[in-house]
């Protein structure tokens, strides 16, 4: 799914400050740095020794106490008194798993709606609403057995028919999910989503607590797909509550928490007593979705929240801070930020034009300048996921070669850049977009403007009217190469924003997904990624990295590799 977490939305990437930075949070390394004010009556001549230094600190404290008058935003940040754990997060764009495709929405909805399986903190597949499963027919059939007595939060029974109904909503041809392609391996599902065929023809049968899936090809990894938040089980009539727990609307949950209120920048969650694993250890959780523009570190330090994402720019000093350092956490996410092209329209329908861009920019250097010491991205598949030598073992990025880039541009019909249309590079405030534009102008003579949109508008634009060139962060929906190579690049996939299509590539991806032979699978993915290298429908820019603060004593505060913090894992060590 798209990943606005990369980087922290509270802190724009240093590469790409918010173009209107003075309006909001300044870029971490922006020169718009404040000068500390001296205490009242201070002058440099008055501070001459240790005794006066002590007076200085006392005065600073007095000054601060004198100047700070709590405003509305400060009052709003008081820790909720009716919460056992307070988490700084975002509000979902919709309260319907079949509608959303972004990481922030998924983070919230994953607490409310459960799948047949879930990924634990270590990104391992675990049974959830399904008690067990078995693969049959050489991996072409998967049978899930749901838990006897499984129920929604209102006590109504939860059966395999509910799973089928939930999944058919995802591929509803009148309004398919942006992530409908997670079901492409199910026989007839992709055709149904396109408006071809009937629901009865789909390899998805429900019988009591048994759900049987028939696949187009062997799909042994589908137990991980079943954990994708998009495929969570929702109650009948969810359409009436898709705006969330507001105005008296009650939400019926299948997951560990029931949202009971969304108001004033707060979402309140209450433990679901009917959760299949029993009520979670933390009874009441509040998600703070509006911190009044304050620093997330300050909010944490104030005690207003127990868990918050922070920017890498804050992590650098917090590492050495005696109080906050021990509460600092980090994970390398299964996420990639990439540059994509609209491969269906000129000029980037020509692979030569894409290769020109790929070779004109020194992507490895841009990654080094990022300053975080992350590995240079050489594959659309991030490290930690086996995909034919990804993760640094193989290089699927064309070499930096401006001369060759100019030759490719000429081959595409634009010698010296003459005649190349004006194309904006569309982004959402993160990533090295301005640097890319500068490199393209310098090496190829292309005039590329950078347009930055709010994330939700950027996502909607990619789906509705794909721009010529854009950036996006993509987080694994499930820990498998297919979550990148299949969902992002296979022909016809709902997440294939650029519309790239290559028959040979599709064949390799399908064959890799179908085989249980790890060596053969690696070879097939290697061949597939080699095609991506030569065709350059996408260019990896950066891999995902997540920093957060969680209160000491708060157990289970881990984020999984796919970017989900499972609130049901939380517990206070001393309570």
């Amino acid at each position: 799914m798209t990943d606005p977490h990369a980087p922290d939305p509270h802190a724009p990437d240093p590469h790409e400050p918010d173009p209107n930075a003075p309006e909001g949070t300044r870029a971490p390394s922006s020169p718009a740095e404040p000068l500390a004010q001296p205490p009242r009556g201070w002058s440099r001549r008055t501070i001459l020794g240790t005794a006066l230094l002590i007076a200085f600190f006392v005065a600073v404290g007095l000054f601060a106490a004198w100047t700070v008058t709590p405003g509305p935003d400060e009052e709003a940040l008081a820790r909720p008194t009716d919460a056992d754990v307070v988490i700084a997060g975002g509000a979902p764009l919709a309260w319907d798993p079949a509608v959303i495709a972004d990481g922030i929405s998924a983070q919230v909805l994953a607490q409310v709606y459960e799948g047949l399986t879930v990924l634990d903190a270590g990104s391992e597949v675990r049974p959830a609403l399904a008690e067990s499963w078995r693969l049959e027919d050489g991996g072409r059939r998967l049978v899930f057995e749901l838990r006897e007595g499984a129920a929604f939060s209102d006590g109504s029974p939860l059966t395999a028919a509910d799973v089928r109904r939930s999944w058919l909503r995802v591929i509803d041809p009148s309004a398919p999910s942006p992530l409908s392609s997670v079901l492409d391996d199910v026989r007839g599902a992709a055709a149904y989503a396109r408006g071809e065929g009937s629901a009865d023809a789909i390899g998805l049968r429900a019988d009591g607590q048994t759900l049987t899936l028939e696949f187009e090809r062997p799909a042994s990894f589908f137990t991980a797909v079943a954990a994708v938040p998009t495929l969570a089980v929702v109650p009948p009539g969810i359409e009436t509550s898709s705006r969330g727990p507001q105005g008296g609307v009650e939400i019926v949950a299948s997951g560990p928490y029931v949202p009971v209120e969304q108001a004033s920048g707060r979402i309140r969650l209450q433990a679901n007593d009917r959760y299949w694993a029993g009520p979670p250890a933390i009874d009441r959780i509040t998600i703070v979705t509006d911190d009044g523009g304050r620093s997330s570190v300050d909010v944490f330090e104030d005690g207003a929240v127990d868990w918050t994402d922070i920017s890498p720019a804050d992590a650098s000093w917090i590492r050495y801070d005696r109080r906050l350092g021990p509460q600092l956490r980090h994970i390398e996410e299964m996420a990639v930020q990439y540059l994509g092209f609209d491969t269906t329209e000129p000029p980037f329908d020509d692979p030569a034009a894409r290769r020109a861009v790929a070779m004109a920019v020194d992507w490895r250097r841009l990654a080094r300048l990022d300053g975080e010491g992350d590995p240079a991205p050489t594959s659309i598949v991030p490290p930690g996921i086996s995909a034919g030598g990804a993760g640094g073992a193989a290089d699927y990025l064309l070499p930096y070669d401006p001369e060759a880039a100019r030759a490719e541009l000429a081959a595409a019909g634009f010698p010296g850049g003459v005649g190349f249309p004006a194309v904006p590079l569309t982004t959402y405030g993160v990533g090295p977009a301005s640097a890319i534009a500068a490199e393209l102008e310098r090496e190829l003579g292309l005039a590329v403007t950078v347009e930055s949109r709010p994330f939700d508008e950027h996502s909607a634009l990619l789906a509705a009217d794909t721009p010529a060139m854009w950036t996006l962060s993509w987080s694994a929906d499930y820990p498998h190469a297919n979550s990148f190579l299949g969902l992002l690049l296979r022909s016809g996939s709902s997440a294939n924003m650029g519309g790239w299509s290559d028959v040979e590539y599709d064949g390799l991806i399908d064959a890799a997904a179908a085989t249980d032979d790890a060596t053969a699978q690696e070879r097939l993915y290697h061949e597939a990624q080699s095609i991506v290298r030569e065709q350059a429908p996408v260019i990896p820019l950066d891999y995902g990295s997540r920093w957060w603060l969680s209160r000491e004593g708060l157990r289970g505060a881990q984020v999984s590799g796919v970017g989900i913090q499972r609130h049901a894992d939380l517990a206070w060590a001393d309570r």
Partner: protein
Amino acid sequence: MSSARAVGLRALLLAAALLLAVLLPAAAEADVVFGQPQAEGSFGETVAFSTTFRTSQRPLRVELLTRLPGGGAERVELAAVEPTGAEGWRAAVYRGGHIVPNTNWQFRFRVVTEDGSFTGPLGQHAVRDERLEWRVLQGEHVNVWWHEGGEDFGRRALDIAEAALTSASDLLGVGQLAPVDFFIYADTREFREAMGPATRENVGGQAHPAIHTLFGLIEPRQIRSDWIEELIRHELAHLVFHEAVDNPYQYPPRWLNEGLAVYLSRGYSEGDRALVRGAAGGGTIMPLEGLVGNFPTRATRSSLAYAESVSAVDFFVQTYGEPRLVDLITSFADGTGIDEAFVAATGDDFAAFDAAWLSSLGARPPEPYGPREVEPGPVPDAWATNGEALLG
């Protein structure tokens, strides 16, 4: 020739020119004809951007494009659109939240139809802080705005600012700068409201290079103090630093930016030396590696971060000389990485400089306190084994 006839002819020519002005954009931009874009709203208010336009096609979407004087990416937002009659439309964007005073946008609207996208004329809007009655003195490079104190105060501030800007620009080799607006607030609450809700309690000034604007807090009792000089020099140093290193690739480490600003505004003061000595001796010193991004926000740790920064700059100057410091800073303008920049300026990388600075203080390189692993939480009993294994 009668004057009446001459006026009539000029009127006719003017009318023809206006008609052309209307017709030419219409011809060049197919079937979308824009009205003049409007923007309203001062500091503390929602800013409303709007335009009218005519088109025979239903617009697929209408967008507002805004840009700041400092350049960078163009911000694009969807506009709300409503019909105003036959082929007539009105589009508007309402931008709320905190907006720093003197934010000055160039803006325009873009209409996307089945035939393509059509961009309207440019508008301009500045967000003024109208809560106060500002006086202004314009200098060669700086405009000083203040609302408390007499003409002599404004003149003094302007003289300091002009001299500081020239001095810093000469040092870093920065050429002609766009005019800088310097707003001096006299009231803590109004200043803090202007800077935004995330502003720390002990902040006395801010530089916003993207809008060529500096802000300072100088209370009436401080009008004759040294604080004015320090504040103005510090914030102008940031602005000049920004001009000297501006590049699309990366930003230099923050300790270098802050360290230079403190160095040029008050030097490595005894107070800062005492802070750094205390931290080095007490084991609370942060390596420069920890000060490349954001600074701590709490007053005590923030003060230490500033003191360490000027300490490091002073150490650099003492060790390598001021010309090498200038070389180091200006090399970032080419997109040079931090290690490359340090190797070029000192012969060794950033880590070596960090270690040498710590060593000069008698401090051992501190060990990081984090990140740390999360203690596992409770998991369902059913996860003792997975589902597939259960079925054998």
